């Protein structure tokens, strides 16, 4: 004879009422499930882990509308009024080559605020075009242009958007949701490379480009522009050249420091590594960036003791090796960068 369990009772009675025990079980189940579901909703609605800085300015559907390039667009010859610039240290983006241009409204100038980001007048356009040489050993074999990114300042606010070049390389289309594109090229060692290049979404732009919740340019800091360039076979200071051409208000250039070039083997490993972290990581890992709430601050000007590197030596390398960091912006590991950081971290006390 079975014990008089719930099952027993319900099967005996022809029209049973549910037992108290069973009712309790049911209510408990409902409570647990409801609670669980509630937690999920509260935790997660509308949250995709990217920055929520506003980035919804108007952009033309086609890149050609901006007239950035003259003649055949794919030659990337900048139109009149576009100022080309280079950075001492540059962001690694899956080995892509980059062309950088600034267009100021006629009659306006950039102003320098010490080492920091230059101040740009309204209606400034900054343009960054990403491309690959078909054969890096012989650039005359042409290139494949993938995307052209714009930062435009209107009414004091920056907005960012990117244009995906078509296969015929005749124009590019506004792409705000992100896109993956196969890219192939032959690298400097003659090896064929294939990657699935990621064109970032508008939300991704905002995640790297936000500072205190607002979109900002990252590269054109006086200290990152403060380098020697070769112009008409003559060495000259880039900032001095900007001034001479009337793009930059007069400032005492001697007081501006220089962000080291992370690729320059003549510099100390420490300087190179800190510059690398500045341009590849600090847009998120800074007191105003996306990761302001972590105490990992990787700007070059931050004194070592305040960076938080000391307590995360292994983690930094591990995250870079696994491809987890940088969180956005590349799909393959930067082996050179990892080698540099490994040397640097091994050299730390």
């Amino acid at each position: 004879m079975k014990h008089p369990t719930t099952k027993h009772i319900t099967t005996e009675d022809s029209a049973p009422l549910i037992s108290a025990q069973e009712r309790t079980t049911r209510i408990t189940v409902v409570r647990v499930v409801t609670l669980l579901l509630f937690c999920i909703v509260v935790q997660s609605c509308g949250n995709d882990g990217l920055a929520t800085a506003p980035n919804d300015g108007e952009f033309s559907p086609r890149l050609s509308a901006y007239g950035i390039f003259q003649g055949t667009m794919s030659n990337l010859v900048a139109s009149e009024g576009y100022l080309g610039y280079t950075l001492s240290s540059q962001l690694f983006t899956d080995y892509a080559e980059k062309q950088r241009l600034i267009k100021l409204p006629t009659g306006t100038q950039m102003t320098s605020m010490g080492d920091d980001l230059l101040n740009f007048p309204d209606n400034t356009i900054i343009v960054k075009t990403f491309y690959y040489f078909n054969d890096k050993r012989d650039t005359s074999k042409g290139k494949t242009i993938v995307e052209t990114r714009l930062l435009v300042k209107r009414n004091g606010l920056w907005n960012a958007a990117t244009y995906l070049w078509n296969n015929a390389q005749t124009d590019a289309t506004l792409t705000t949701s992100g896109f993956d594109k196969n890219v192939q090229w032959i690298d400097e060692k003659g090896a064929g490379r294939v990657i699935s290049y990621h064109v970032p979404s508008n939300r991704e732009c905002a995640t790297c480009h936000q500072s205190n919740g607002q979109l900002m340019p990252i590269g054109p800091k006086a200290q990152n522009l403060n380098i020697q360039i070769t112009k008409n076979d003559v060495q000259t200071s880039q900032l001095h050249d900007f001034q001479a051409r009337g793009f930059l208000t007069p400032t005492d250039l001697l007081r501006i420091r220089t962000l080291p070039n992370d690729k320059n083997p003549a510099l100390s490993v420490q300087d190179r590594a800190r510059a690398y972290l500045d341009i590849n990581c600090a847009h998120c890992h800074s007191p105003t960036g996306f990761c302001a709430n972590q105490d990992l601050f990787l700007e070059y000007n931050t004194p070592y003791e305040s960076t938080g590197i000391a307590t995360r030596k292994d983690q930094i390398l591990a995250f870079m090796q696994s491809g987890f960091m940088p969180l956005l912006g590349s799909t393959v590991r930067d082996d050179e960068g990892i080698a540099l950081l490994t040397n640097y971290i091994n050299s730390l006390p």
Partner: protein
Amino acid sequence: MKKFIFALLTLALHECLSAQQPSEEIPQRFMYRISFAPEIGYRTLVSTASEREIAESRDANEIAQIGFTTGIAAEYAFTRNWSLSVGFAYANRGYQTKTAIFNWSAPAQQSPSESFVSYRFGYIDIPILLTYRFGHDRHWTFFATGGAVPSVFLVRSKTLFVNEQNTWTSTDNQRGIGYDRFALFLSAEVGAEYTLSDSFALRLGIVGKRAIAASNPNMATQEYLFSGGLNLGFVWRP
């Protein structure tokens, strides 16, 4: 909208479970199930006019991919025919690109000849399903199941497969960002259970799931994942 549907669901569930007064003989009210479903997955894209070309080029290049869902569920029978289940499952669904063939102008020393990319989305599913059983006989029972599957997005992995001299290698890139943390799928299944003993049955169904909320709701091109396949299960009635 999603919050609303969700609240409604929760309420419905609550009503069902607490108000129902059973009126007929049911041998076992509680059942437990484990299941594994190999599935084919894909997505639909809904885009604004400005990104139509982008969506079209993705539609031309992306194809279905095999994924799976595996999990457990507890089922409660109200009547001989009707029951409600709540489960917990891990789902891995996604899609991939067609294989691209690469030609090299200059003979490079190592040159990949083909590649494709696989996109996989890991979700924790919480299926809340209503089941109708019919055609009971000594061994066979048929069923039809439908309901909602709220789920939590865990990670998306993008894996690039490259063929170099007939050796495929892959590089994986995993991110838990860029997609809404919360998703909602509708699920439908038909199939049969084969009774092995008083307590055990085998279960085989054809199942389909479709997202009714985009996985990237803030974008101009939105993705709605869907998947379908065989659902193999094992039922235990204690």
